[in-house]
């Protein structure tokens, strides 16, 4: 298959179209806007639904409605817009309908800026909205991975009747890279006997997130938790790079993972035994595998474009059995591989750094 040059936002949009996305609802926000723009053109050409909502609140509730009707549906946004969507996301999860949300993160908090950041990690992996829930969170590092994970997101959403998110950032959204777009046959979707398709000739379906009285809601919660356990058992994904003989392992995801990979290659050239552990599913987080990896190494260096959010999961995974260092940049500042390499060097040569 021929490779073509695409921008991240457009590649994700085209991947969603090929995955059979039937309806897109969104509201423009940099650095994600090209995704919506691409959809506005292509979805209409294909006779599918594109609608620019009046706000992110509206967009996520349109997604909710289309999902209830059984459509393959998505929205995309960037950090402040993702915050606005939390109520709708909580409703979608409680209603157990499939949907995909792309978050091309920017610097925060507040309106922040439009540079790449990973400050939404807590919000995305720990629930985000009200109530007891988590959603699957997929973290691409390259545009090819962004395409593959977008397609996967739709299938996982169907499989678990839940919401699946892509945790991307302004770098993934804006860079251009050669990618291969898979040709997909009409997607195989599971039966949807629950969908609201008109009750003529059958019992009526009710989709709701309102369960008055204690016991019915407890039952829903227990079912949601059961699904989450199933997800934790089946869907953990990660990538490993140069872990053989590694004494210092960098833990990083998304754009940070990519920067770390270059830094590790350079560290190896200097004779420093460094490696990379890169979670691909941020939820479910690869606790067990990271724990295993940490058993054979001396130091972990967590690198994120935030103040240290995944860091907490790394502490949990390893139960602090080894020194865990952290390097992070906030507010949309993206460090170069040389800056990450300097952190690795500090750990490798204690006389140069604090340790």
């Amino acid at each position, binding site marked *: 298959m021929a490779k073509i040059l695409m921008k991240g936002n457009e590649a994700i949009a085209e991947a969603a179209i090929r995955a059979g996305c039937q309806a897109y609802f969104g509201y423009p926000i*940099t*650095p994600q*806007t090209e995704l919506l723009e691409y959809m506005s053109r292509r979805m209409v050409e294909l006779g599918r639904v594109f609608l620019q909502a009046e706000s992110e609140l509206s967009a996520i509730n349109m997604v909710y409605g289309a999902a209830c009707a059984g459509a393959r549906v998505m929205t995309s946004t960037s950090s402040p817009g993702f915050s606005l969507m939390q109520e709708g996301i909580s409703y979608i999860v409680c209603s157990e309908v499939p949907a995909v949300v792309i978050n091309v993160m920017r610097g925060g908090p507040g309106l922040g800026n*439009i540079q790449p950041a990973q400050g939404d990690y807590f919000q995305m992996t720990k629930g985000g909205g009200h109530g007891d829930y988590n959603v699957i969170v997929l973290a691409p590092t390259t545009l090819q991975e962004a395409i593959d994970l977008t397609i996967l997101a739709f299938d996982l959403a169907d499989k678990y009747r839940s919401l699946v998110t892509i945790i991307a950032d302004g770098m993934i959204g804006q860079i*251009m890279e050669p990618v291969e777009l898979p040709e997909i046959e009409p997607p195989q979707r599971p039966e949807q006997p629950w969908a609201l398709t008109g009750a003529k000739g059958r019992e009526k379906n009710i989709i709701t997130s309102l369960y008055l009285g204690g016991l019915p809601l407890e039952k829903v919660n227990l079912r949601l938790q059961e699904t989450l356990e199933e997800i934790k058992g089946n869907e953990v994904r990660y990538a490993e790079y140069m872990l053989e003989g590694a004494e210092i392992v960098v833990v990083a995801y998304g754009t940070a993972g990519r920067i770390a990979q270059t830094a590790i290659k350079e560290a190896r050239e200097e004779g420093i035994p460094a490696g990379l552990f890169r979670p691909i599913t941020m939820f479910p987080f690869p606790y067990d595998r990271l724990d295993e990896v940490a058993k054979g190494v001396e130091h972990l260096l967590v690198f994120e474009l935030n103040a240290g959010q995944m860091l907490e999961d790394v502490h949990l995974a390893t139960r602090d059995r080894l020194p865990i260092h952290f390097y992070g940049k906030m507010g949309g500042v993206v460090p170069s591989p040389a800056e990450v390499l300097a952190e690795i060097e500090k750990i490798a040569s204690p006389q140069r750094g604090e340790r």
Partner: protein
Amino acid sequence: MAKGTILIDEDRCKGCELCTTVCPFGLVHIANHFNAKGYRPSTLVDPEGKCTGCTLCARICPDVAITVYREGV
């Protein structure tokens, strides 16, 4: 040396600064204002008319935002 100039489609620019790194005369800079998307676009600062229209900035631009004009081609 040929005389040239460039035209930057500001609203296509994402301020990645690649063009500023390749100009042999250091004529391409990041502007102080913002474009419609909120990025600071690149801009040509060439009061002495040094631009030769060599096209390096346009070739490296990932978003095809730069058009190059060269005299007498």
